[in-house]
């Protein structure tokens, strides 16, 4: 496979500078020499624009950049749904409705919530599935990292995987994660600094917006269907426009999207680092505005690559025609869309910035996965169930072993990821298995006082199993086929519905926890005073959650209409 990025020394200098900054801040942070750093990292009283940017940057990683461009190359505009239906409404909901509850409650992480709300069984199930999910997703990030190494240096895949895994281990050890907020905000600007020129130059090369529209309509494959976001049948896999809309709105827009944004505590923790309830609520709402615009710099490059880069056009033509062997003979897949465009369009210099941005995003993503795995395995699993009551050093040591083990295992899960020509399919499927049932149990548990601990774990297990069974019956058993990401949406919806049904049924036959144990864990048991900010009414409208969320909603609906 001969895709090489012709990087020169200046590109490497730019990449090195970026890492010097980030690791440098991490180094200073670890030494505790500066109260300014501590202020930004300890998570207290940060201005809303910082938390808002960190909020979306924590999310702007491998999936957004590579997955969205891959899906853009494959389907075109319907990919926008991942942002305008699949993110913005949920973010606004998070800010307006959920955040006061998180701020006023005892909840600090999802496994902790499971343990306090439902007891050890649900906690165990959740911790195990969370740990497995982290390993699988770390594999995706590692695969992408290794593919950049491969493109840059031409090393074979397995070498790239090992080298990249080793570098991530180094990054974690030296303290790259200690500088998390800095890293995320810096990352955001570097990525925009790289992708915006990439998109503009790409548009210039295809003849501007008009040129892009013409070329895409005339590509002889999906044609003009790629220029309309609705009904998006190619994306959802349903032929019927009605089913397609329902699949997208319910499967993606509700289950997957709300499931992700309300249970993803990395995101919620960014918001909790703010000055007040109002600032915490504003964080996802502020983040929603740039989020609406990000599709233009990640999806458009994918679409441009599909018409501009001859290798990719050829691959697409063969895949759409059903010629799998011919398609793999081209040596490229949809996942390469972004890199191919970078190769063909960016001069050295900007290329370095782009590589720095991509490496930063994937590395931070994988490091976060590994770190989350480490935490869950050491504390939620090992300390809780295997060897409780030891000294701190014991668990730290266990954590280090878990970190190294995770990096090694990620090499193998990366190979799984490599089998998917579009990583988004793989990732959405994983989300369907893990996030969808979690969301159902979480939401029920949060709002339904009567839900019992037994229902907590049985719902989770049933939901996950049903999604896995459904998916396997299609993937391996060939019982039915749903192209596009329809299978992922249906699995997610199934997991959600099954989880709720099982939880309701089991609750009827088992005993709930007494109300006093549920204080701060259930909405109705959380004191009203901690949900409301008395100072909010005096603020100007652009600092208040509800007005700004309303504006955001209007904008995102307008975008849907304009690009329908």
């Amino acid at each position, binding site marked *: 496979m001969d895709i090489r990025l012709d990087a020169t020394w200046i590109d490497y200098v730019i990449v090195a*500078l970026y890492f010097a*900054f980030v690791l440098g*801040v991490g180094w200073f942070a670890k030494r*505790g*020499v*500066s*109260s*300014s750093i*501590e*202020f*930004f990292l*300890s998570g*207290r009283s*940060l*201005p809303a624009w*910082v938390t808002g940017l960190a909020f979306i940057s*924590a*999310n*702007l*990683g491998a*999936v957004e950049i590579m997955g969205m461009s891959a899906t853009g190359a494959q389907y075109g505009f319907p990919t926008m749904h991942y942002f305008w239906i*699949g993110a913005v409404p949920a973010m606004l909901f998070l800010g307006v409705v959920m955040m006061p509850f998180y701020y006023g409650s005892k909840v*600090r992480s*999802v*496994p*902790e919530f499971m343990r306090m709300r439902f007891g050890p069984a649900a906690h165990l199930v959740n911790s195990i599935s969370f740990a497995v999910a*982290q390993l699988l*997703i770390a594999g995706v*990030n590692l695969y992408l990292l290794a593919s950049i190494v491969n493109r840059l240096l031409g090393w074979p895949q397995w070498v790239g995987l090992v080298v990249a895994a080793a570098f991530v281990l180094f990054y974690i050890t030296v303290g790259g994660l200690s500088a998390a*907020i800095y890293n995320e*905000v810096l990352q955001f600007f*570097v990525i925009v*600094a790289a992708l915006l*020129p990439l998109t503009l*130059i790409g548009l*210039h*090369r295809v003849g501007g917006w008009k040129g892009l529209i013409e070329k895409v309509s005339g590509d002889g494959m999906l044609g003009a269907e790629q220029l309309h976001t609705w009904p998006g049948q190619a994306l959802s896999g349903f032929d019927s426009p009605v089913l397609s809309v329902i699949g997208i709105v319910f499967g993606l827009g509700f289950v*997957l999207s709300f499931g*992700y944004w309300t249970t*993803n*505590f*990395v995101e919620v*923790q960014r918001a909790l680092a703010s000055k007040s*309830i109002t600032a915490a609520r504003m964080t996802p709402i502020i983040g929603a505005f740039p989020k609406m615009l990000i599709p233009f710099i990640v999806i458009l490059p994918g679409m441009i690559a599909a018409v501009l880069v001859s290798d990719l056009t050829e691959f697409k033509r063969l895949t759409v025609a059903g010629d799998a062997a011919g398609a793999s003979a081209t040596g490229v897949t949809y996942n390469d869309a972004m890199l191919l465009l970078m190769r063909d369009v*960016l*001069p*050295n*210099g*900007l290329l370095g*910035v782009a590589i720095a941005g991509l490496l930063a995003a994937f590395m931070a993503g994988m490091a*976060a*996965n590994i770190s*989350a795995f480490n*935490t*869950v395995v050491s*504390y939620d699993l090992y300390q809780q169930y295997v060897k409780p009551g030891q000294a701190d050093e014991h668990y730290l040591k266990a954590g280090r072993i878990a970190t190294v083990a995770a990096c090694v295992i990620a090499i193998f899960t990366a190979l799984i990821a490599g089998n998917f020509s579009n990583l988004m399919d793989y*990732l959405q499927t994983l989300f369907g298995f893990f996030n969808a049932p979690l969301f159902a149990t979480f939401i029920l548990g949060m709002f339904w006082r009567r839900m019992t601990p037994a229902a907590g774990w049985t719902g989770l297990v049933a939901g996950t199993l049903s999604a896995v069974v459904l998916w396997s019956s299609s993937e391996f058993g060939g019982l039915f086929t749903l192209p596009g990401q329809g299978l992922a949406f249906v699995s997610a919806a199934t997991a959600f519905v099954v989880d709720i049904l099982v939880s309701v049924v089991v609750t009827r036959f088992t005993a709930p926890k007494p109300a006093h144990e549920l204080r701060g864990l259930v909405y109705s048991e959380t004191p009203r005073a*901690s949900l409301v900010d*008395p*100072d909010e009414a005096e603020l100007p409208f652009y600092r208040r959650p509800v007005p700004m969320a309303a504006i955001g909603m209007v904008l995102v609906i307008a975008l849907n209409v304009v690009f329908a």
Partner: protein
Amino acid sequence: MSPAPEHRRGTHRADTAPGDRASETHSPDAPVPGGRAPEDRTAEAPVVEPRATAPSEPASLEGAGGDGAGDGAHVETVGAFDIRTMIGALIGLFGAILTVLGLVAFTAAEAAKTGGVNANLWSGLVMLAVAAAFLLWARLEPIRIVVRDNEPGAEEPHDIQAL
């Protein structure tokens, strides 16, 4: 939708109720001498944001029973490690490199790739402008923090809050 859900065990949040503010004991313009950070730089420009008048509240429990002086509370200006300064520095550096490249290294081969546009030059200039804006913002509206020492044995050595 990106991966990496993570719950960070290390993020210790003091359970301060929203709106809890440590009472301000020193004027923001006179940091206590012997204050820590070497990058401490009080802005020369007049302070743009209104001075926060803290309502009188009970002193934070970390101070040794007293109202500030005993726990080394002082006001600092977030200086070189202000996130806006870092953004300005990094993007400015990139911008400078790209601008220079655009001026000296714009070859015909590159022009073919970009369709005739000197991409490095333009991107570099825009980045320099953005960087300048951030550095200016950081200088004109500095973030001030109140730093007080915690009792020995506390999870964190200092308690730091925005002013």
